[in-house]
Every structure is written in C-alpha cells, then in structure tokens.
C-alpha cells in the first residue's frame, strides 16, 4: 500500500520518461446494465455536530447526476444501553440526521471500545451493519514548509504536515481527514489512511511518529492546464482530523484508494484490475436487494493552523 504514496513521485518521472508518445482520450464505452443496489453511507463520529446517514441507489457509471435518495426508510443505531433514531431531512431526500448535544454525544459515543449496530429498513427489507469506536490520537502540532524546489510542486510552494505519535499497541487504524479553508480534501489521491504510524499491518510501525507521507496533508491542486499548484498560499488555513476507524473500514478505504486513485499515464502499468470494494452492510435476506457502502463509528481529534508569514 505504501507504494501508493510513492506513486505520485514515480509518475512524475515516468511522464518525463514517456517521451511524449503516450496519449489519453476520454471515451464513452457501452457499459452493461445493472440492477441498482442500495448505498449506505454511514460514517458517524463523536463530534458534536449533525450525524448523517445517507441512503441512495447506485447509478449507471457514466451518469453524471446526483444520486436518487431513498426516502421513507427507518435508520436506527443501537448500542448496549440505548439507541439513536435518525430522521429524514425534509429538504434532502435520503439524508437521515441526528443532532446531538454535548451530553447526548458523550452518552452515545463517549466510551471507547463500544459496539454499535446500524439497522436500516427500506420497504420490507432490513439491512444491518456493525462497528466499534476505537481510540484516536491527539495531534501535537501542524507545520508549514517552504519548498523551494520540490519536484512534485512548483518552485516556491508551501506544504503542510501534522505531527502526532501513534500510541503503543499494534492495530490502531486511522483515517486522516483534512480541510483546506474549510473544504474537505476528498479527491481519491487525497485519501489518507494509516495502520499504526505506517501503511500496513505487515509494516510494524507501532508507537512512533506518523511516517512522512502520512503526515503530509496537502491538497492535490491543479490549474486549468493540469499543472500542479502550490498546496497552500499565505493566508490559507488547514484543519486536520484523525478519525479512528475499524480494521474493516481501513481495508475498505484501501480498496477505495486502489479503485479510485487512477492518475493515468504510466501509472496504469502499476494499476490492478478493477474489482468491487468491500462492504459491511448485509441484507438479512441474502436473496434480496444487494447493498454497498459502509458503516463506521469514529473518535476524532483535530487541530487547525493558518499559514501566516512572519
């Protein structure tokens, strides 16, 4: 998995090496028809803000419209001591919300190690998924760096890094989610997941500072000619969150990276065949409508910083 983070650098080299003979074209292939599957997008956390579960149907791959929400479902999260009912947003079909307070949030998400079950009822069908809230780790600091000539970026760029140390004990998994000026960095190339302080279970980076590629929280910004831009300019701010995730969610996100981060060009030589990413949503009726998506509950730590020149 770590090779992914090395990819960007390799690609720059290979593009140089490709001697300008390669070419890419957007095409419009005929794709097989398929029955829609239920999409469950349920990533909850202990932040005191609206918790959202989105239900929709899968669309034909090349249909560039907003997905159709699934209305009229019941969405409930249960745990050993209670349950939370999500209610549909009247203005957004398929969006189900629960608005916690400091107290209710702490009640529901305040105990590390607690297990949760999501139950979604759509028509006569019931879908279930389970998750667990794991420990997260505090961010010590965020630093900006002036890159006079880093080959990945234009000369005189600014990059950002966060600093945190994975707690001792193998098997902590995290999703590092960053925001630039309040906008979430969610391009496939910006998805940043960690296993302890490294990339994989087999990697054995336990109890140390997060590895450099994981620490970097830089947007993948390009101008209209697809030339990279400086990730940050003076006046920009960055906000970093470390979400604890389950091992299943870590595997899921890694698969998402493999399937979605397709920079093209020579990187295609290193790409793997298209395959479906996993899901933890199951239909109680195995012969019923298929479901995709994921349910995860996270503990979150966060820190922000503004790039100011002294």
């Amino acid at each position, binding site marked *: *998995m*770590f090779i992914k983070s090395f990819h960007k*650098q*390799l690609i720059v080299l290979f593009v*140089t090496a490709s*001697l300008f*003979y390669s*070419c*890419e*074209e*957007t*095409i419009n*292939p005929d794709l*097989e028809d*398929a029955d829609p*599957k239920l999409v469950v*997008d349920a*990533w909850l956390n202990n932040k005191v803000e609206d918790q959202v579960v989105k239900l929709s149907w*899968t669309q*034909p*791959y*090349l249909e*560039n*419209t*907003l*997905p159709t929400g699934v209305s009229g479902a019941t969405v409930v999260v249960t745990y050993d001591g209670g349950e939370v009912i999500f209610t549909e947003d009247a203005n957004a079909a398929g969006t189900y919300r629960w608005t916690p307070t400091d107290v209710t949030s702490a009640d529901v998400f305040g105990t590390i190690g607690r297990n949760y079950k999501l139950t979604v009822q759509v028509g006569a069908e019931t879908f279930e998924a389970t998750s667990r809230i794991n420990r997260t780790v505090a961010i010590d600091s965020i630093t900006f760096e002036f890159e006079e000539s880093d*080959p990945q970026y234009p000369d005189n760029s600014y990059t950002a890094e966060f600093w945190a140390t994975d707690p001792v004990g193998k098997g902590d998994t995290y999703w590092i989610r960053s925001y630039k000026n309040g*906008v*979430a960095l969610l*391009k*496939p190339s910006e*998805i940043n997941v960690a296993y302890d*302080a*490294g990339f*994989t*279970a*087999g*990697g054995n980076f336990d109890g*140390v*500072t997060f590895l*450099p590629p994981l620490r970097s929280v830089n947007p993948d910004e390009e101008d209209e000619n*697809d030339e990279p831009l400086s990730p940050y300019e003076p006046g920009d701010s960055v906000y970093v969150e470390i979400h604890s995730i389950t091992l299943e969610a870590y595997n899921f996100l*890694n*698969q998402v990276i*493999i*399937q*979605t981060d397709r920079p*093209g060009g*020579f990187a*295609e*030589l*290193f*790409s793997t*065949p*298209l*395959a479906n*990413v996993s899901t933890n949503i199951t239909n109680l009726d195995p012969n019923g409508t*298929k479901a995709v*998506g*994921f349910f995860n509950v996270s503990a979150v730590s966060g820190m922000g910083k503004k790039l100011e020149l002294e």
Partner: protein
Amino acid sequence: MILRLPTFIIVLGMLLSQQAWSQSRYTLSGYIKDASNGEVLVGATVYIKEIGKGATSNVYGFYSITVPAASYTVEYTFVGYQKIEKQITLDKDVRENIELPSDSEQLQEVVVIAEDEQTSKVQTVEMSTAKLDIKTIQKIPAFLGEVDVIKSLQLLPGVSTVGEGASGFNVRGGSVGQNLVLQDEAPVYNSSHMLGFFSAFNPDAVKDTKLYKGAVPSRYGGRLSSILDIRMKDGNSKDYETTGGIGTIFSRLSFEGPIVKDKGSFIVSGRRSYIDILARPFVDILKDGGALNFYDLTAKANYSLNDKNRVYLSGYFGRDNFYFDDNQGFNWGNATATVRWNHLFNEKLFSNITGVYSSYKYELQFGDDARNRFNWNSSISNFIFKPEFSYFVNSNNEINFGAEAIYYFFEPANAKGISNGQPTDISLDKRYNLETAIYINNNLTINDTWAVEYGIRYSNFQYFGPGTIYTYNDTIPGKRKTVATETKYKRGKSIVDYGNFEPRLSVKASLSESSSVKASYNRMVQYLHLISNTTASNPLDVWTPSSNNIKPEIADQYTLGYFRSIGASKQWEASVEGYYRETQNQIDYIDGADLLINEYLEGDLLSGKGRAYGLEFYVQKKKGRLNGWISYTLGRTELKVDGINNNKWYAARYDQTHNVKVAAFYDISKRWSVSADFVFVTGTPTTFPTSRYVMQGILIPDNASGSRNNVRLPNYHRLDLSFRLEGREYSRKGKERKNRDYWVFSVYNVYARKNAFSTYFSQSNERVAAGQPLQSEATQLSIIGSMVPAISYNFKF
C-alpha cells in the same frame, strides 16, 4: 526412487554402448566454427552422404557422429555459410574441426531457422521451438530503432505481450513469470529495461536465441510455459574488432578479439541510454542529482586449454536508475556470472559443467532528510551448479543426462523507515531454498520414419529455516485470510520439501521427405512465483518461493503438429501446431491484495486452475530477395479461482483470441534493404464497471455482477518499417574498406494508431462544490499514441 534414477542412467548407458561396441564403428567429432571470427556455430549440420546420416552441432559447436568404418563424403553446412565437403576415411576415431566461410557473396541473408535441409524442422523430432539468430533480430524494426531480442520473439507464433511498456512476454497463455530466461545458462529475473520498453540484452553481445514453448527437453525445468535460451557471442578469436552504434536511446560499444589466436577470445560490450543527458536542460526534475538512465555491461571470455578442455567465463550487469534527486528514486537490475567448463571424456562423451551466480535487485528510497526517510530494497540471488553430459551413442542415438542444484536466497524486503528521527525496521524474513534436479533424456531415431525424444526430470524443492511460518484460516473465498498459527524454525531446519517427476516425450513420424507429424507431452513444475497483480508486470514485482501456503505450480502440456517444407529447394516451410495446457496451483490475488512489504503476503494469495489451448499456423520463406514469415495463433487462456469472478472460469489478462504477425524482409539493392512487421492482436480482456455510488464524497465504481475481465479492449494493430543502408564496401579509390557501417531508419507504428493499453474509470480531478454531482469518466490510455521515427548509425572496424 531418487537413488534409483542414476543407476538407471548408468545401466541404460551401458546397454546402449554395448550395442555400439558390437559392430566396428568409429566416431567423427569436432567443433564447427565461423571461419571469419572463430565463433562456434550452433546447430550446424554434418551430413554423411553415402549413408544419409547426419548430426548437428550443440550449443558449444561440438558434434559427434558414430558410423560403421568406411570412407565417406562428409558435408558441413550452416545457413548463411558456404558448404564444405570432405573425404574422410573412418578407420579410427577422427577429430575434424571445421571452419565455415560465411556466404557474404550472396545477397540474400537467410532468416530465422538456421537448420539446413537434411535436418530441417520437418525432419527433427523437435517441435514447439523457435530459433532467432542475431542477424534476423537485427533486421526486425524495433521501437525507437533499438534492436531488441525479446520484442523480436514476440513476432513468433504463440508469443505475445499485454502491451507496450509491459515487462517480459507471454508464451502460449502463460504469465510473464512462467518463462525462464537464461543468458549463458544464468537465469535473468527481469528481462527488461525502462519498465518494459527495451530488453535487457545487448544485441551486440548475443549470438542466438532459442525459445522452447513446448516439448521441452528434460535438461530444462523450473518454469511452466517456456524456456528462452540466449547464448552470448564468444568473441572474435582471429582479429580485434570494435562494433558499436549510436541510436536514439542507447549508444553501444563492443570490443572483441583473440586472447591467443584460435585458442581463446573475449568480448566486452556496453550500452547506456542518454535521454537524461539530452533532456537535462529542458526538464526541471532532472536538475538536482536526478537521473533517468539505464545501462548494461556484458563480458565474456573463453579459452581452449587443449583439444579436450575449454573454459568460458561470462558476466552481465544491468541497471536502471530513476532518481529525482540524491535522496529519492529507485533503481533495479540483474547481475549474472557464469563459469563453464567443456570437457571431452572421449569422442562420444561430451560434458559441460556450469557454475552460475545470478541476482535481481531493486531499491527505492524517498524522504526529505536524514530524520525522515524510507529505504527499501528487495532481491533474489542464486547459485547454480549444473553438470551435464551428452553421450553420442551412434548417429541415431544421443543420451543427455545431468543434474542441477540451485541455492536461492530471497530478501523480500529490507526496509527501514525513519520518522521524525525514530528508526523502525520493517524488514521481512529472508528465505533460503534449495532446488535440485536430475534428468536423463534420450533422442533416438528409430528409422527414416520414426524418431522419439523422451526423458524424465526429477525435481526437488526445499525451504529451510531460519524463518517464521504462518498458517492461515480459510475464511471466505477471495477475502484476506487471517493468521491461524505462527511457528518459528531454526537455521537449517527443513520447513517444506516438495518433489516432482516431470516426464517429457516427443514423437516424430515422417510422412514423406518433406512432411511429418509430431506430438509431445511434457510436465513442468515451477517452484518460484512472480508475485504481480498489476495490469502489466513491472520491476517491483517480487519473486517468492513455494512454501507451506504456496504450492508448486504444475503444468501438463500436450502438443500435436504437422510440419512441411515446400518448393524444390525447400525454401518454404510451414507448420500447424495445436497445444493444450492445464495448470494447477496457479497464483492469483484477493481484491485489494497488498503484495509489497507484507509479512502476511501469503494470506492475500489465492490458488486456482488454469487452462490454455490454441492453434499456431506458421509459414516461412527462408530464401530469396524477399523472405520472412507469417504467423497466426488462435488461442484461449482461462483461469478459475475461488473468490474471483463468482468462482467461474474467466479469461486471463493475456488472453488473445487472434494473434497475427507478419515479418518481411526485402533487399532492394546491394546497399538498401527494407524490413516490415505487422501485428494484429485481439484486444486483451479487462473489467469495466456497471455502476457508481458516492461514499463520503468519493465516487466509487461497482460491477454489479462482480465479474472479472468482462469486456475486451479494442483490437491492437501496428505496422513498423525499417530501412537499412549499408555503407560503401569500397573507398573512392576502389580499395575495400576495413570499416563497415550502416544506417537504420525506422518508423514504429507507421499509421500512428492509438492502441489502447488500458481503459480506466475515475472521477474527474476538479473539486466539486457541495450539492453538485461528481463527474465520472472513462479514459483510454495509449502508451504509444503516435508514430515514432528513429535513426541509428552502426559501425564495425
């Protein structure tokens, strides 16, 4: 059984030699060489006219033929050389070393199969092989004008590639890792430079190549689908000679000459690419210690100690460097060294003992500074000892036997990360393996109609400690397996021990002087596995040995063929071959497999079955101003793996239904010649999604039925052309020039077709405002999307 096999060999040998002693027979033997430079000729023919018996020289140029005492007219022939006829009286064993003058007077150069009439493809028992000599390879138009051994092979029936830039080649539906590439007996684990754009072999140092796609003799083993045997030049044993060339990518230089005239010679060849030097002023990233280059160095020496002993030393070192700056980048390459000793026990018993060291290594590093960096290297090294014997019983009967021991040393990952000054070592256990084999092979001509070649190989593979062995729970097919047990083994303790018999059989029945039918069966066993789940094989792929979790791969192949020569002088040759191969324990990967630096790699591997079958048609015109060949392969390659494609058979990535290759060579005048090749291949299988969904703002593709390789890319076709202009043979004053030179002007992909390498699906790279739909798109990538002209200048003095 292991102990009994050598006994069997000895008894068999004695029986056969008894038969030989019962008549008054004598042996004619010796070496056949090129008169101009002393290079031994491989596959040259010795033919005794009176009795219609013949023999061919082996890879060391040695021949031996035993016939009843008499006076004979003996013909020595080799394609492209003048025939030599000799009167020889065999009233005792006779040693006759022959030097054939090359046939430079004639305009046409003979292409590919260098056998002569008496032992043409039609009349030998051998099938499913292809031989390309370097003269032919040099004529084939190549990418950027670089003469390329591997790319040339891809014009032969049954040989293919998944696309430009992919390392290696595929034979009869086998994967890249199922080919054994030998360079002077040393295995080469990655045969490519610059990903897969150029092959690792310097054409100036190559003498000839032979590819076994089936009916593999028992002296070879270790890979399922093919053996590519590349022989390096010995070097000119008569005169000093310098050859070289300046091309678009590489510059090449070779120097060769006698150590002691006619007794020994050497050759040293080097190549280096120089795009980075040319590009440096224009490309930003190459400024501060950046590098983008590849080079290789080949050296070889041989010396005849006396009439009965000759030693060879050869070595190869190749490396690719891709660096941004001094701290970041990667490199990879092969290194090999071979020592060989040819010894003649007597006129009938030829032996060769080989010792080999070979390794493949790659290394990556990245990071900002000494407190934050990551280093990783991975390697496979081996030491080989291989004694081999050829016993020429009589002109109809040859026995080959021998043994092989290979000690492997794997370093899957030496990896060290320093994060904020804290070092962490995440290296994986090294692995130690021993592969051994013994074999015997008998090539027997029964009468004018029937000939058989049969043999058996017994191979054994051992995995030794120290090491940690995991067993895995088989939970859900196709999902990552979880560790069940962990066992530590001490140094030298045997962890696994596999043994396999590999029977081989080929039969030929001549229908007439110009046609024959052949059939073969062989079993091949492969103990090393190339771990690669990417679209194309690439330099970071890791070789891994068989273990408690990875069983040896086994293939059984059956072939049937019809061979025919056409025309009064047999200038045409045609063949049809059918093959069917079944494989067991073929490796596949779970979706999202993590293959690099993963201690639990084996939990991400799946094992399945494979089948490949096809028909290969081949027509070749061997002589004349216009010569060349047409090949057509109709084939199918499928895999069946639990957990992939709903456990149903699916087409492998390298499955190509139709594969047409045309290579044509034409001499326009004494100085100008033109070569062309045309390729048409059915698009390779790939997987397209059906649906999309959005999760946390990320657009994810989905194939609703979960199938693999459900569609095909567009068909691939391409035409290449190359013109060669020979330099003048005579100077203005009419003197013959000592220096020879020629220019090659080539165009790759003449009609600039944008052949698809892959189609990928992704969300567009723009950031989408809240409430707006994500944009999905399909992109078709052509690695070579335009016509590529090139020019090279080559010289010799």
